[in-house]
């Protein structure tokens, strides 16, 4: 009887040790809905929402001054010409340097991120290069995926320009419609980078539409001038190349970015002297990829 008693007890205990049901739940558990699971890479939420407010009167006054100055500048620029420059300059323009890294304030326009945000182990840093003349993006790539049970691949680092803002934080766009080529002066380490351009979108589904192309860097101590026509940029959405391709319209460009994701673990560096746009008269191609119908009607 003792044996049968322990057997009964062990069977009850074993029943309790059974794994929870793996059938999908009709209603998710309270913990999932109410966010008790913290994804790797997300910051810890241990402060109450009201403790996140930092009210500062002087910062508010500075902000008001900054925005009204920008507003006044917009009004006065409107009288001068498009984008605050006379029309003659707009017509004669063939090259324009958009981002030049000549001081610490130029780094304010860029933001870096890596897969650390999703729990990976890459690191990326941005600083000014020698003599404050270039920007230096460096770090370590690690393609170990984060252990959250659903990410399979990882290992990317990126540097992206911030969206230009007008007064009162309204979105402004880069108007590159008089140019057709992207011109960069970089010094890399031999790794293949991707250049991502984000244009202005309207619908929610187009939020992650990015036009990409590749930047193959040479490793040498010499600078590399890279000219990529905008007609070569292909459309991707959330990293996947789309079947329905269309050319990038240059009249409302939001941001440009550089991404490294070449599955090679280890340190990397990229030095950028300037990023500009230019007009190449010999380049007459409108779009490099065929946009034919995949299922044409007979």
């Amino acid at each position: 009887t003792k044996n049968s008693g322990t057997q009964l007890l062990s069977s009850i205990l074993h029943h309790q040790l059974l794994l929870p049901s793996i059938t999908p739940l009709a209603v998710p558990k309270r913990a999932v809905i109410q966010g008790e699971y913290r994804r790797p890479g997300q910051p810890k939420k241990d402060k109450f929402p009201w403790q996140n407010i930092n009210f500062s009167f002087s910062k508010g006054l500075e902000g008001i001054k900054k925005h009204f100055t920008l507003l006044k500048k917009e009004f006065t620029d409107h009288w001068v010409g498009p984008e605050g420059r006379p029309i003659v300059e707009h017509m004669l323009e063939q090259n324009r340097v958009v981002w030049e890294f000549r001081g610490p304030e130029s780094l304010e326009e860029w933001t870096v991120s890596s897969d650390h945000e999703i729990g990976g182990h890459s690191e990326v840093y941005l600083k000014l290069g020698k003599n404050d003349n270039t920007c230096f993006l460096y770090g370590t790539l690690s393609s170990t995926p984060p252990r959250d049970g659903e990410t399979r691949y990882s290992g990317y680092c990126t540097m992206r320009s911030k969206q230009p803002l007008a007064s009162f934080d309204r979105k402004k766009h880069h108007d590159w419609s008089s140019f057709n080529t992207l011109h960069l002066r970089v010094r890399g380490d031999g790794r293949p980078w991707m250049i991502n351009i984000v244009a202005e979108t309207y619908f929610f589904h187009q939020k992650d539409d990015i036009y990409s192309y590749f930047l193959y860097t040479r490793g040498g101590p010499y600078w590399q001038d890279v000219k990529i026509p905008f007609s070569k940029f292909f459309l991707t959405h959330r990293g996947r190349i789309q079947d329905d391709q269309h050319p990038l319209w240059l009249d409302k460009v939001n941001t440009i970015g550089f991404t490294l994701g070449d599955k090679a673990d280890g340190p990397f560096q990229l030095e950028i002297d300037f990023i500009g746009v230019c007009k190449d008269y010999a380049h007459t191609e409108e779009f490099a990829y065929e946009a034919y119908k995949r299922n044409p009607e007979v």
Partner: protein
Amino acid sequence: MNPYILMTLLFGLGLGTTITFASSHWLLAWMGLELNTLAIIPLMAQLHHPRAVEATTKYFLTQAAAAATLLFGSITNAWLTGQWEIQQLSHPLPTTMITLALALKIGLAPLHAWLPEVLQGLDLTTGFILSTWQKLAPFALLLQIQPTNSNLLIFLGLASTLIGGWGGLNQTQLRKILAYSSIAHLGWMILVLQFSPQLTLLTLMTYFLMTASAFLIFKINNSTNINTLATSWAKTPALTTLMPLILLSLGGLPPLTGFMPKWLILQELTKQDLAPTATLAALTALLSLYFYLRLSYAMTLTISSNTLTATTPWRFTSTQTTLPVATTTSLSLWLLPLTPAMMAILTI
């Protein structure tokens, strides 16, 4: 596009406007307007670029809102006065609602914000149809309602001329320039609507001629911004010399056609004791003139640095049809001496 579909859509466009023209009941007029909107939507989205789809969506939303407001206004009028006739719109509340709905339909300030973005997303042909044909039906309705609120119409008119002039000053994209010029011209039309509807019709017709010639010339040169326009000397030298005159006509300078409506409107406004309004309208027309002059400066008065390294295109024979350009260009330049004839035609 499949030619049968294209034919159906263009037929739908024509049918919608014709229904609105021929209607005396508000519901039929609303139906014509909706038919117009729906027929042009596929034409706008045929260029399968996200910006074209964005323009189509914005156009649809604004036009649907305007049509709904129009329907609401006409039903309110039917409820308050029992009348469904378009010309029997007597209560001030539905009249104001309908006027504002029609202002949103055509793009008068302050309900103009959709027009530049929508025109920018379209190709030149569809933009042309939107700027000209789609204005006919709402104007047919505007001309028939007797507006009781004169201040509203003067406000709409002055705001449109001002915003059309101010907004177009900084643009380098030709379609946006034409959108702001459209807003300014519509302002002039609305200013004189309550005093002399015939002048509104005259302004509308001359505006159609001038905008048609502008759009067609841009289409021939295949240019959508000022820098591309600056190379038109190599493609069509004759049109390059005529374009400044067309732009000055759009700006309303004598002895070109564009002066005719502006002169008659200023005369009518002065006769109605609205001299300050007339002065303000004339001054804001100077803003529009500035950006027309800038276009003609870029196109004709300067040789741009965009050198063409190949044989200049004007040496080749072109396959483009030139009759519409020729007709509209000539009419938009030489109609001023025929002013008494135009007045007589429209008064009947």
